[in-house]
């Protein structure tokens, strides 16, 4: 059975099944969440999201201000300004666009602004490559944003709505990014269920406006100079809020399941209960990973899989629990941690979390296609002890292993 879509046991609200690309699913979620200010700059593969949102606004389907800014630096700046004024905001980017925004990303955290950003992931230049890997979102890990990674269009839609509820919760007040595969999710038409009545979304994620705002009746300063006597304490509040958001993310996900019939958890396990070997992955390739697990199980290998859905805050305790009984952990990373202790960012973090052999596998870099046979071959080598732990291996790279 697939773990990512829970059977609609308790589903309360009427929904209709439609087909959308991942990008258009995100745009629809933003529309249903009634974002008030949207500022964005085009970059492949996220562009269709903001084109669709511009269309919604210009057709009168969404009462929002759409600011066609002149750069990503300005896109993030504009949503920071709008959020600081008390509006629900949205922007989306990929790759170099994120790089161009970078200066403002930690500022949104320090000001505790509940901005929601989408990201159709794409690798960084050079060489220029417009295709999907997770290099961009992985470079946000140290900044204090909540980071979700969705597996498909349905989950991207659901997660954007959850993200608004979490970010605007008064226990959190942090920006959140919802990442999903460039092209493999962003551009592929998929079936999904969406609420018939958009008000259901607003009932689930009402605009709280509970954060500190620019209010002429109650003037406050946002972004003051924090001298060494103050900076650390103020920043630490953001650190604590991110840690505490784990609980809020979980609550929001469970509540979403009750209302809309779908919840995903922080981590999504697959046939992991009695596994001796686990394959950890994120994004759309989890479907392939599950196929590999099924094949290994048929061949008598007790394999299981685990999907990372929330990587910030890091669900470390849950990791430990889920992988307690597993002997070997293969981590498929889709971004390179150049020159790091392991070459995959998630492999590093998982190794630091579970203290057992971690097999670091890099795949789909620059969107190099892989199939389940290639994953299978790698896992078999790990299972047979042909690969050593804590050493980087590659799948699909010519001339290397």
């Amino acid at each position, binding site marked *: 059975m697939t773990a990512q879509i829970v059977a609609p046991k308790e589903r309360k609200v009427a929904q209709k099944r439609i087909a959308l690309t991942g990008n258009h699913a995100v745009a629809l979620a933003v529309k249903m969440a009634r974002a008030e200010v949207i500022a964005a700059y085009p970059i492949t593969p996220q562009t269709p999201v903001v084109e669709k949102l511009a269309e919604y606004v210009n057709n009168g389907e969404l009462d929002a201000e759409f600011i066609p800014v*002149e*750069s990503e630096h*300005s896109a993030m700046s504009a949503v920071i*300004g709008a959020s600081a004024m008390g509006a629900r*905001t949205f922007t989306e980017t990929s790759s170099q666009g994120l790089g161009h925004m970078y200066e403002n990303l930690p500022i949104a955290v320090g000001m505790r602004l509940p901005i929601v950003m989408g990201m159709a992931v794409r690798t960084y230049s050079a060489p220029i490559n417009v295709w999907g890997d997770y290099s961009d979102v992985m470079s946000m890990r140290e900044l204090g944003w909540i980071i979700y990674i969705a597996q498909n269009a349905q989950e991207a839609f659901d997660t954007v709505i959850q993200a608004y509820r979490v970010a605007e919760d008064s226990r959190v007040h942090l920006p959140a990014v919802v990442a999903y595969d460039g092209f493999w999710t962003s551009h592929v038409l998929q079936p999904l269920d969406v609420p018939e009545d958009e008000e259901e979304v607003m009932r689930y994620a009402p605009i709280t406006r509970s954060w500190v705002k620019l209010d*002429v009746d109650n*003037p406050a*300063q946002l972004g003051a100079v*924090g001298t060494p006597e103050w900076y650390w304490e103020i920043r630490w509040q953001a650190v604590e809020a991110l840690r505490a958001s784990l609980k809020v993310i979980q609550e929001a996900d469970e509540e979403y399941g009750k209302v809309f019939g779908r919840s995903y958890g922080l981590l999504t396990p697959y046939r992991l209960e009695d596994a001796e070997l686990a394959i950890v992955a994120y994004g759309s390739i989890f479907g392939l990973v599950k196929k590999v697990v099924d094949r290994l199980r048929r061949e008598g290998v007790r394999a299981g899989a685990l999907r990372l859905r929330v990587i910030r805050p890091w669900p470390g305790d849950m990791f430990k629990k889920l992988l307690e009984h597993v002997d070997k952990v293969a981590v498929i990373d889709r971004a390179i941690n150049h020159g790091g202790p392991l070459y995959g960012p998630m492999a590093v973090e998982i190794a630091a979390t579970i203290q057992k052999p971690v097999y670091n596998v890099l795949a789909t870099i620059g969107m190099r296609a892989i199939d389940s046979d290639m994953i299978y071959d790698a896992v078999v080598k790990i299972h047979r002890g042909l690969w050593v732990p804590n050493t980087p291996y590659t799948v699909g790279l010519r001339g290397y292993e």
Partner: protein
Amino acid sequence: MKVAEEYPGLYEYANFELPQEELFLPGHGLCASCTIGVIARHMLKVLGPDTVVVNPTGCAEVSTVVYPRTNWAVPWIHVAFGNGGSVASGIEAAIKVLKRRGVIDPNRKINVVVFAGDGGTADIGFQALSGLLERGHKVIYVMYDNEGYMNTGIQRSGTTPLGASTTTAPAGRKVPGNVTHKKPMAAIAAAHGIPYVATANPAYVHDMVYKFKKAAEAEGPAFLHILQSCTPGWRFEPKYAIRVLELATETGYWVNYEIDHGEFRVTLPVPRRKPVKCFLELQGRFKHLKPEEVEAIQAVIDRDVEEINRIMGKEVIGPVDPSLPCITPRGAR
């Protein structure tokens, strides 16, 4: 105070009363005699409490909002150095939609102001400014121009004048200070076709506050380029902070004008000009200039003045009168 009576012929308009209330509070950390305070204080007197200030990185920011203190009695935000224009765009857009959704009273007028230095406007923030003007957000952009990156220690900016010595364009044996011309920010802003553009000088407060008022009344973006004297950067004695600004105008180095819906008008005519030497001599940053270099600067100003008179169709800025004393005694105007 009736300026028209006090300075007959100097201003073409009568001024208005300013409120007693101070919204730029005392106790800031600006340098002694820094004229940023003069600009900010009068700006808020005109704009009033229903104003949101966006302040990009620079002297104004670091010396007025050191947590947990603030000198601003209005909501104020600092995001980064290069994004005053875009942060303000977002705030203005939010106000519009929040008024439509009934979160903010639709009849309430809230001013959105960017208060930015020359670096934050003419250099790193240029793109965000241009985007703001192009999209027509109703924002008042106030550029206080001290002609350098003063916060980081007097490096050159795009508005540092020809010949000034700065730490990144130092006067050396080979090169006499800054070799580029001052970027004409008001003209560049006006080229975006926005409703109101003006230059101002805090030594002429009445002219300046009148321009704040017109900027607030504009039905689209307004851009104010305001000269601001900087004691450490320009290297003059603190007591000359206003005097040096007066000399900027009296020499024709700085011309106070406005472009109201495309119509150009000099708001502060100067019938007889002092030589630019008077302005330069008061400041350490021009100390190294040789007489021929001063002459070259004078030639640039003469050309600029000629152009302004041509646009005006009459002589609003008069010829250089070498008989004028550099320092005019008080009350002798």
